[in-house]
């Protein structure tokens, strides 16, 4: 009963990562299954003709600003979702050492790949 002084509270920056996690998770939930179905199964197995996914069409699409943006979001945003889960998953598995480094590595990887994709798309412009 001697806790009369007001406790000090430290704000977490988690909302930034949670926001990206939520957006990525939403995207994954709605569109990733059909993307996998198309690029990973239907096209390689020949159910959808390759001509629908050929170099010229795709390159032309990637060279527009909206095409580049769509591609960036579709590929990079899920990573912000997945690496958030990986970061918290490490804690769930009881790996408590070096939480700061784990954070840097997880979100750093998502960030690096995002920048890599953006650079590739920019070069195709």
């Amino acid at each position: 009963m001697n806790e009369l002084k007001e406790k000090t509270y430290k704000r977490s920056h988690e909302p930034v990562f949670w926001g990206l996690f939520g957006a990525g998770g939403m995207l994954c939930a709605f569109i990733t299954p059909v993307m996998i179905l198309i690029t990973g199964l239907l096209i390689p197995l020949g159910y959808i003709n390759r001509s629908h996914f050929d170099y010229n069409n795709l390159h032309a699409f990637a060279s527009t600003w909206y095409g580049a943006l769509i591609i960036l979001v579709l590929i990079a945003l899920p990573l912000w979702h997945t690496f958030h889960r990986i970061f918290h998953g490490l804690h769930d598995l009881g790996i408590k050492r070096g939480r700061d480094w784990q954070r840097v590595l997880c979100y750093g990887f998502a960030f690096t790949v995002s920048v890599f994709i953006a650079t590739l798309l920019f070069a195709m412009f």
Partner: protein
Amino acid sequence: MSKRKPYIRKLETNWWLKTGFYTRYMLREGSCIFITLYSLILTWGIFNLSQGESSFNMWLDTLQNPFFIILHLIVLIFALYHSITWFALAPKAIALWVKGTRIEDSVIIATHYAAFAIVTVLCLLIITL
């Protein structure tokens, strides 16, 4: 003298194997590993796209390898599991009140599945048309 000696149990590292509920949670969280792989495969594809036509076609050829077909099949299963769990939990993160009553969980879930079906059909149409 007090005989109190509280015994503290540590949560074991394999806690998530002990109850089906926890295991399903870990599978849900684990789906992210497969989705990560898929994003990296696509990143690799974009890299090849930027390298020219032959490079890009080589990437498409590689995806025909049975290894990648099976990998994509596994990834698809986990991605669907992610979708199912995401939709199942959606009502907990959404509180919509209309005329003094909260919208039923089942309505929110059904809306998500309807949107999922529309997105899926739309994507298949866009790619084939």
